[in-house]
């Protein structure tokens, strides 16, 4: 596992009107590392992830990505088209139906739900579909904002395993969550947003 960094952040800051949300956030993320971001609500966890992903314009500080690092993002919203079925949503990322179905089943979505339009799925099932999409995207860096919301215990466990395997395969992730991530010490780092 080469230890070149996939993502480098130098004194990233963000303000909203006069309020300083956070300033001088710096860290670098090497392959095989998972950074857990915790902090009370409104401390800017979501803003930080959106600044990293580039879905929010940066005002100060630098975020440099390794040139062939690809990103997969999971925000508060699932980014799923309600009128399409789970498989159709994933078909955007996977060449064939079989790999879509495998990913969905791995996340615990029973085969019976694969073909129904997503508006018929529960919040937990839609979250699993979104997580399956993140997996299928085969990106180096995962940026997950509260990935465990609406997930049952078994799915919670599966996602943790997936994170560990992703890190072992040379991937990296930034995860904003309060749940305890039981990954091995080497992989897991923590940052608390004050």
């Amino acid at each position: 596992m080469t230890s070149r960094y996939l993502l480098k952040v130098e004194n990233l800051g963000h303000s909203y009107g006069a309020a300083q949300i956070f300033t001088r956030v710096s860290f670098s993320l090497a392959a095989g590392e998972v950074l857990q971001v915790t902090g009370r609500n409104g401390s800017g966890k979501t803003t930080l992830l959106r600044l990293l992903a580039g879905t929010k314009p940066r005002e100060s500080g630098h975020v440099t990505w390794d040139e062939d690092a690809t990103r997969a993002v999971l925000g508060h919203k699932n980014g799923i088209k309600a009128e399409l079925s789970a498989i159709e949503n994933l078909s955007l990322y996977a060449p064939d139906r079989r790999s879509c179905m495998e990913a969905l089943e791995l996340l615990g979505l029973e085969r019976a739900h694969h073909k129904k339009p997503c508006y018929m799925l529960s919040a937990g099932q839609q979250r699993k579909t979104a997580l399956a999409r993140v997996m299928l995207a085969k990106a180096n860096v995962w940026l997950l904002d509260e990935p465990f919301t609406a997930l049952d215990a078994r799915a919670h466990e599966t996602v943790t395993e997936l994170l560990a395997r992703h890190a072992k395969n040379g991937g990296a992730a930034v995860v904003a969550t309060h749940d305890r991530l039981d990954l091995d010490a080497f992989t897991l780092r923590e940052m608390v947003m004050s």
Partner: protein
Amino acid sequence: MLRKFAAPKIFYPLAGKLMPWFFWTFAVLGAVGLYWGLMLAPVDAVQGQAYRIMYVHVPSAWMSMMIYTSMAVSAAAVLVWRTKVAEYWLLCSPGLGASFTFITLVTGSLWGKPMWGTYWVWDARLTSELVLLFIYFAILAMKGAIPDRRKAARVMAMITVVGFVNIPIIKFSVDWWTTLHQGDSIFRKGGPSIAPSMLVPLFMMALSFSSYYFWLVLKHIRTLIERSAA
């Protein structure tokens, strides 16, 4: 060098020093220009007294375009360098721009009545001015719809720049369409031939209005700086 002045901390005292100058230029030139235009300038052979409306109509029309141009410049600064002062400049200019455009349209139509016999003719210049007013309204509506000031400035900058690129095309298409359907507007052909004695008060009024604009813009920006620093 310009970037240095763009920092609010430096801009604030500078604006404070400039404001009185702009105010007095506006007040003095305005009074003299007004008196000269209203009282001293000779009666126009063709239009009698009505042409005196020119002393507010023409400077306002000129201001409506000058303000938009200044907005386009600050919009470029907002989009490219994210200059804070340029954002403030962009936030407080459309209100003034829309006001002058509105004045232009109403005084233009008041001038039209004695000249053409009707308050409104789809004449190229008046129509373009009307479209400009709608662009100002669009920018102001966007400003009102976005609470976060920095984002509002960026959205307004985007519309301003796209609008700026389109204004010549709008002007051209309106010219073409209105001349295609030529009304009987004397105004269109040449308008009143402006005798030199009338030109001087006209430029005075234009300079006065410009100083008025800079005076108020600087005042607005200082208020915005005070409020964001608080």
